[in-house]
């Protein structure tokens, strides 16, 4: 059993604290993705789990054992690095077998495991080449092979796909997910790409400035972001966020953006907010659709008339960039037709899927 427990983990570089006491429990065989902008401490956290960075405060345990003072080699982990970190002077076969050789495994065991990994990753033809003779995707595969031959308790991935081109990245994403289904192991995966996080994770850990902002399944994080940071970081395009104030209009609470523009507060949020509160109104582009090009809206809808500045056709849908209450927002048009810039369209907003955040703290009012 290889569950990982982080308890009040702190990391200082000199006087600078970069990870501020994070708590996280990762279950056995779970695929957890740490995601956040650069400098949020996600890689540092991963490297502390690996033992490549000292832990300044708190406790990390793997499989029930506190590993704070263990060297990396005593933690039964393996790691895939962003720059692959293959051993340049060894062939692919030697790269794969190196860890087992160091562990003094018998030759036939090494050969068997190396071949097994080669089959899983489809690199049997590359076994006698050196890393210099491989392409980026092949190197990445070898790096993953080197991680799996040792059958470790935990896999750590440090932005493994960020050096690959877009197409290969999508392909490797699927392969890593498939790998996880094949070799059941606990995986901690670090990335700054929210798409990778959404597509691969069992659970996403969103980090910012050395804190954990939110932990949850991809859909939880997407549908119920706890604050404006998570709301704008997860999902593409980012959530539209418009500052406003809660007012009473026509006997109902509205979010007013200025004198004449406002939307009703969705019924589900009516008792969570009070008149006069400064809020940020949030909704995803998917939930603002032009009339006649919308998917059926569940629950209440609110109408808006907007002028389209720019239209970005994506094939199955078109992204519409509009101005609303002085803020650039995006809407989505399904079954698209060509849209001319400057065209005025009537939009429907799916109110039940909108969010309200407190303007001061940025926290979601859904609670």
């Amino acid at each position, binding site marked *: 059993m290889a569950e990982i427990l982080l308890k009040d983990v702190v990391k200082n570089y000199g006087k600078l604290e970069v990870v501020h006491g994070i708590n996280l429990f990762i279950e056995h065989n779970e695929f957890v993705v740490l995601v956040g902008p650069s400098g949020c401490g996600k890689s540092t956290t991963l490297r502390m789990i690996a033992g490549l960075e000292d832990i300044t405060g708190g406790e990390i345990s793997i499989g029930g054992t506190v590993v704070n003072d263990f060297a*990396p*080699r005593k933690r039964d982990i393996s790691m895939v690095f962003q*720059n692959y*970190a*293959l*051993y340049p002077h060894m062939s692919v076969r030697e790269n794969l077998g*190196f860890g087992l050789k160091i562990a003094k495994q018998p030759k036939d065991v090494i050969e068997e495991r190396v071949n097994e990994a080669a089959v899983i990753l489809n690199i049997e033809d590359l076994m006698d080449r050196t890393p*210099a003779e491989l392409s980026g995707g092949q190197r990445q595969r070898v790096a993953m092979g080197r991680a799996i031959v*040792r059958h470790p308790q935990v896999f*750590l991935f440090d932005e493994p796909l960020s050096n690959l081109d877009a197409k290969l990245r999508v392909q490797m994403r699927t392969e890593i997910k498939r790998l996880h289904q094949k070799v059941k192991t606990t995986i901690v995966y670090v990335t700054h790409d929210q798409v990778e996080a959404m597509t691969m994770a069992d659970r996403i850990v969103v980090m910012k400035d050395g804190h954990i902002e939110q932990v949850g399944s991809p859909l939880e994080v997407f549908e119920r972001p706890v604050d404006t940071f998570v709301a704008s970081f997860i999902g593409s395009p980012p959530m539209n966020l418009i500052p406003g104030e809660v007012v009473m209009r026509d006997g109902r609470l509205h979010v007013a953006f200025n004198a004449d523009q406002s939307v009703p507060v969705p019924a589900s949020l009516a008792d969570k907010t009070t008149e006069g509160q400064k809020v940020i109104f949030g909704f995803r582009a998917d939930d603002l659709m032009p009339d006649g090009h919308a998917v059926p809206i569940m629950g209440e809808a609110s109408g808006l008339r907007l002028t389209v500045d720019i239209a970005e056709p994506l094939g199955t849908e078109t992204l519409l960039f509009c101005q609303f209450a002085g803020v650039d927002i995006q809407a989505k048009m399904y079954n698209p037709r060509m849209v001319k810039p400057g065209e005025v369209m009537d939009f429907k907003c799916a109110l039940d899927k909108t969010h309200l955040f407190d303007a001061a703290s940025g926290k979601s009012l859904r609670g």
Partner: protein
Amino acid sequence: MSIVSVQPRRKSRRDWTPALLLSPAFLVLIFVVLVPLLFSLYTSFTNYRLIRPDSLYEWIGLRNYQRIFTDSKFWAAFGRTIIFLTLALNLEFIFGLGIALLINKITWGQRTLRTIMMFPMMFSPILVGYQFKFIFNDNIGLLNNALQSLGIGDGAIAWLVDKPLGMFTIIFAEVWMSTSVFAILLLAGLFAMPRDPLEAAKVDGCNSWQVFRHITLPFLMPFAFIAMTIRSLDVARAYDIVDVMTGGGPANRTELLWTMIARVGYDNSRMGQANAMAYVSILLSIAFTYYFFTKLIAARKYMGGAE
């Protein structure tokens, strides 16, 4: 019509231009390297003596080579030179590696130390020779004085005279002077070393020694071979330090190829025979250099896949 008449002229001019531009370099090489080389090769087949210029034309075939190949003193010097090369290069490599690793560890004063480390290289080998001749002198030398004052040894140790110690002192001086060549090149290698494979090896189960043995050292070997190539040429022609410290003596105990060649050529004025020895010595140098160069090529083949 004009095109047809112009083209061949332009073509022929173009053919000559590169040759013309290269000719100064070739002329210099011919007069500075090739002619002396051929001349000395020729003299090695003659009975040429400096004091009898007409002996330059006494063709004696392979007799010079026959004589040195059957001369046990020559083979002793030959063997001593190989031992000297092997010991000096290996010691310099080991010490240079140690110094480079230590300097790589520190974070403060690295540049200053790197400069200080190069001081021994700034002295003329002759002066280094005199300095160590004085240190190792059996009567007035610093070392014997220090040993006696500390009560470690009472008798005067004949450092420069004794059979194994004589060679030891020369190697000591050579190592003192040139270890920094290795240290600087290996330090450059350490600076260029990518960090990721080191971390990967740690995660892969290596302890510090294993990381060094399996990752750092193979990465440094091309740098070591560059240093070895340079130094093997240098050490194989060692003359100045030896001549100053022991003069190849006493009783040929520290005789190396070049001290022997200089004695035969200039003291005994048998230039023909000296040149024959010099050719053998050059072949030895080439053999060493070639060996390290092939090693270098082999080690470098694998580099460049780390990023």
